[in-house]
Each structure stands twice: as C-alpha cells, then as structure tokens.
C-alpha cells in the first residue's frame, strides 16, 4: 500500500453546524456526529499500531528484554551500538540488493505476461489462473516447493540442466535463487494490475493509431506504455515497500544462508529480539529501518508531486 496525500474534502458537503445540546460533553458531541463510526477502528489502530510505534521508541531507549525484567534506561546506547553493527548494515544491504534485483524483474515480467494474456482472445480465465495462482500460496508452501526444485543432487533444476548449479550454496547464487522464487510467487499480483490497466485503455486509441499507420510496436510504445504509466509507478512502489520487508521466504528456504549472505534485515531484527531476547535493541533496529522506509516513501511522494506539477496535470 502506498502513502497518500490526504484526499480533498468531499465536494458539496455543507458543514451543517451541529446543533448544540446543553449538558453534552465535547466527546459526546463528537460521538453523536459520527465518532461512533470511527471509534472501533481507532481503538485497533491505536492499540496495535500507534502504541507499538510509541512504546517501541521507549523500548529502544532501554535495555528491554523479552521477559520484561531487569529493564534499565540506557539512553541512546542501542542506537550507538546499531550504527557500529556490521550485521545490521550487511543485512540491510542484502535487503536492498534483493529489492533492486526483484523490482525491475517484476515490472518487466508482469507487463510482458499481461500483454500476452490481454492479447490472446481465448481462455482468459486460464491465463489469469496460471500466472496468478502462485500468489495464493502460503510462504511455507513456496519454500517447500522451491527448496525441492533447488536441491543440489535430486532437484529438478540441476537434473534438467545436467549441471550442479549451487542454487542455495553460494551467496550470489542464493540471492538470485531467492529473487527467482519470489518473482514466481508474487508476479501474479502485478500481472493482474497490469491486466486491469490494459483493459481500461479505450480501443479507439488503437484504432486511430492504426489508421495513422502505426505498427504494433509503435502502438505499444506510444499508447500502451504511457497509458499504464501510473500503474507502473504504483507497482514499483508497492514492490519496493514489500521487498524492503522481505522475510518469510528467505528465512524458510535457507534461513538467510549461506554465510548470512541472503539474510534480510527483518530477520536480523527478529534474531536480536527473539533469539537474543533483546527487544530493546531490536526496537532500535526497527526504528532505523522504519525511518529509511518512510524516507523512501516521502521521496517517492515528492517525485510524483514534482512530476505532476511540471506537467500541470492533476491526474
């Protein structure tokens, strides 16, 4: 999900001044005028999102452990430790590598598959099922299937290739293998997004272009690609945000190995917090990553705004 500027207030909604009733508290008035609708959500939101964010900040300033005993205030020590923690930066580097490898692949493959499925007349449901089905798998199933495919001696891949490819045995290969498995697993979602976008392009654009003598490639470059640009932007953002949080499949396929060369930063945080009992330090790491992710999001927002400003479009 992506970050959003607050939407403009609904048009044509006259702010009817709430009639004051004596003896009603301010909160009561809020509740009467619609507060009850949002209250349940805000409770969940407050307890399971805002509170962890705030308390996480507090935990990160303490030597807090999983059992909640012997807590000690240590100020910024956790952050100081984190800045010198090679394991943090290595694992963050792995996460970034993973993101940088996967995102362009997802965009290209999803677009290609969607173009294909869109232009084949028959059996739409089949193409959707075939390319989207992997997205429905739990990560544990994905991990099982691909560990078996990658198995060095008896795996399908090495036997089909008749070669001992070190899929999960060497760092660079292992990262590539994770990207490949993830591509297979998640591309279906972006594929559907592209498919919906392609279907929304009015036919008359293509017809007009064809009359002007544009060939299929020209039509694709001059009509299709620009028309799906917004969706592409969306896919890139969703993909980046999802990839920065990658954990499940890497943890389940080979637990970040070999030599921690695929270990993502989320796994490192979990290891510190749960294997090492150090919730305080894990919270500090979380905050560092959180700030980085928010920064990415804000840069993206800023870029979008700049672009739309330059074009004078409101989209």
């Amino acid at each position: 999900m992506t970050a959003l500027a607050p939407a403009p207030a609904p048009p044509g909604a006259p702010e009817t001044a709430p009639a004051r009733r004596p003896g009603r508290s301010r909160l009561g008035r809020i509740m009467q005028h619609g507060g009850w609708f949002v209250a349940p959500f805000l409770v969940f939101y407050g307890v399971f999102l805002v509170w962890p964010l705030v308390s996480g900040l507090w935990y990160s300033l303490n030597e807090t452990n999983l059992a909640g005993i012997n807590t000690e205030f240590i100020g910024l020590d956790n952050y100081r430790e984190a800045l010198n923690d090679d394991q943090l930066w290595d694992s963050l580097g792995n996460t970034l590598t993973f993101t940088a490898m996967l995102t362009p692949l997802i965009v290209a493959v999803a677009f290609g598959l969607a173009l294909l499925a869109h232009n084949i007349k028959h059996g739409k449901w089949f193409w959707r099922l075939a390319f989207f089905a992997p997205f429905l798998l739990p990560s544990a199933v994905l991990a099982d299937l691909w560990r078996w495919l990658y198995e060095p001696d008896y795996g399908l891949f090495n036997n089909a290739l008749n070669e001992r490819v070190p899929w999960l045995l060497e760092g660079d290969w292992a990262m590539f293998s994770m990207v490949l498995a993830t591509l297979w697993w998640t591309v279906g979602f972006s594929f559907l997004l592209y498919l919906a976008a392609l279907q929304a392009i009015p036919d008359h654009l293509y017809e007009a272009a064809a009359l002007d003598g544009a060939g299929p490639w020209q039509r694709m470059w001059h009509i299709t690609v620009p028309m799906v640009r917004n969706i592409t932007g969306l896919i890139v953002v969703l993909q980046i945000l999802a990839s920065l949080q990658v954990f499940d499949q890497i943890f389940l396929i080979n637990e970040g190995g070999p030599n921690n060369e695929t270990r993502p930063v989320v796994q490192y945080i979990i290891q510190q917090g749960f294997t090492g009992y150090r919730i305080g330090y894990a919270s500090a790491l979380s905050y560092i990553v959180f700030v980085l992710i928010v920064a990415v999001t804000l840069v993206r927002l800023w870029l979008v705004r700049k672009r739309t400003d330059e074009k004078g479009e409101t989209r």
Partner: protein
Amino acid sequence: MTHASLRSLPPPLGRPSRRGLLRGAAGLGAAVALGGSAACGSAASLAGGDRRIQFWNLFSGGDGANMRGMLDRFRAEFPGIEVEDTTLAWGDRYYTKLAMAGAGGRAPDVGILHLGRLAGFAPGRLLDPIDTGLLAEAGVRREDFNATLWDRATIGGELYGLPLDIHPSTMFYNRAACEPAGLLDAEGRLTELNGTEQFLDALDAVREVIGQSPLGWNALMPGECWWTFVGLYAQTGGSILSEDGTELALDDDRAEEVLAFMARLVADEYAIPGQDLVGYFVNGGGFVLFGNWLLVDFRTAGLDFGARPYPTLFGTPATQAESHILVLPHQEGRSGAADEAAHTLIAWLVRNSLSWAEASHVPAYLPILEHPDYLAMEPQSEYRGAMDIAAFDPPAWFCGTSSRVQADVGVHLSAAAMGSVTPAEAVRDIRATLRSLLDTRNPFGEGTAS
C-alpha cells in the same frame, strides 16, 4: 529463530518399535523395584494439598509420544498427583514463553530447558532452585550423575536443572560401506580411528567402496558447524571461553587447525554441503556426522548401521553434547504439596528414563546408563561413552541450543568450512563476534543477583 534453531531442534523422533517398548517396560519394572520404597515414601507425604502440576515441554514427534507414555505411567503410579502436560513449539518461541511465564511468576510447576541455555535463563530469577533434599528422598542424588553434567546445572551452589539425558554429536557409519573397506572389527563395530590422517584414510577407503562422497556433514548449516567445532576444539584440549564464561579463552592456532580440517572435508569433497543427510545415508552413504536422534530416521529406513561418538582427531577424546534438563520455572511462593509433587515427578522421570533412551538419547541417570536393558540397545549403547567425554556449550548467556552463538559464530565457522574465508580470517571473525557477545549485557540479567 536462526538457521541453527530450526534445524538444531530437539529431535523429532519416530515411534519406538514395539519390541523397544516392551523392553522399556521391563526396565521400568526393574527401576520401580529398585527405588520403590523411596517413591512410596514421597507419595505418602503428599497426602494433602494441591497436587495438580503443570509440565511444559518442547517434545513433539516421537520424543513427545515417548514423554506422554512416561507421564501416563507416572499417573498410574501416583494417582494422587495430577499432571497436566503441555507440549509447546521448539526453539526460541519455547524459551520466550517460558521466560515470560517465569517473569510473571505464573509459571508451570515443571519445565524442560536445554542445559546450554541455563546460564542465560536467569537462574534464581526466572528459575527456582531444585530442593536436593526432596530429590534425595525420591532416590536421586548427585552421585547418580556424571559430575561434570550435574555441576554444569549447578549455579551459585544451587541445582537449577535435573539432567534427563544428553544428546551428543554422533558419527553414524554404514556397515555395508565400511565392511569392504576393512573398517569393522569382528563384532561389526567401527575400528578406532585416531587422528585426522587415519580418519581421512578411512574416508578415502569408503569412497572407493561406495563411489560417492564418503561423509554426510552439512557445512552449510551454522548450527551444525558449531556442534562440530565445539567437539573438535575440545579435542585439542582447549576451551572457547573461560570457565565462568566471561572471558575469551580461544587459542587461535588450535582453532585454525580445526577449521582447516573442516574446510578440507569440503574442499576435498569428502562431504558435499547442502545434502539432506537422511537422503544421503539412505542412498548408500558411508558416514554421517550429526546428533544422535537421526538414529530413528535411519532405523525407519531399515539401514544396517552403527553409531559412536566423534572419533578422536585432535588428541583428547571429546564429542559435543547438549542435555535436556528438568527445571522449576519461577513461581511466587513455590512450596507445599505441589512443589513436592513437582520434585516427585522430575525424580521419577530421570529414574525411569530407560524408554526415553529407546528413542536415541543417552540417559543422564547413571543407574539407567548401566542398566542391562540399556546396554542391550543397539546402537544406543555404542555411544553411551559420550557421557564421559561430552563437550558442552560454554556457560554464557548467548550459548545453547538455537542460541545467538550458534547463529553468529556458526556462520563464520560455516564460511571457513565452505572455503569462502581462510581459517585465520574466520578465527578473527569468531573472536570479534564472541567479543561483542561478551560485551553485551545478559538480557535477562544475572539471575541470582536480583
């Protein structure tokens, strides 16, 4: 939660064979006869009060079935004590839960812990000491255990864990592969292999016979590399940390020697990393280095194999081992009938651990270790000597099953074994990692101090 943790879990074991169960039952009879009076005494002293006890453990699979069977027999023998057992998931999540319960003082009466984890588990704060007087009443004394094992479970003069078993690193050997290589004695047991050269010669001979890599050992797994290193490094006579677990005691030359050997196993293709060890052994592999609990899978596969502690490659006999210990998680005001019942239960479990041994673990209670029925178990009794040469994790908070040390140091060991760094580089990394772990405050604090 780490690489190691998922893999180095307490063994999921298959069901014991029927014959084994019968043998176990026979042993049980003997054990009961042996200590019957003491047991009755404590049962009688439990005439009143709350005798419902909660028991948390992390045994699933065959281990779990075994434990449930033992508990059923306990219930039959002590109808006055109601045992409510809960099986929880292995690894980090189990320790987390047990620690949380102990911190809140609302813990179960009895739990299971890995010995290596004890130092980090705030004994005295998250764990209550065991009353050795009550144990003695139930017929369990220090003399009934290997002294090293018992003393490792003793902190600040108090016993915090009653050892149920040890589960050592084992070398499994395939008789069909070793026989033609001339490595078996008249009784079909592996001949002694001393020193790395003799060991590698044996591997070469087996390679000739089976036409594939002779050793199943997964250098890719940090946890498995850690076990191997703990065992082999102990064979050089060194220890990784000082005796109190606060100082680095690693000897660089010895560590490098061990790492060079581990790397050679991979470089010369004695062992192929990433192999599924059961698959390897089932497909005619020669040796497998792993924890004793693989025995169950191998037996299920119907293989003719033996198992013994690690061969002595560096002078001093030693093999890595962990131990399941029975602990009393911290309760506010632990006392009275329930407390006595808890002691009765843990004492009974170790005294009746013959059927526990059936599923491959080495019983910690020496009378069982010397029991004729245990000695008759093959290949279990073949590695019973592991008790005398067991090398445990250093006594520091970050050690033990699925701990930080397994993941963080293990990864450097694995890198060296895989040949991606030299042994010297790995030792430097290991030093740095241990240094930083030692510099990190024990998260749960020093238990006894509080």
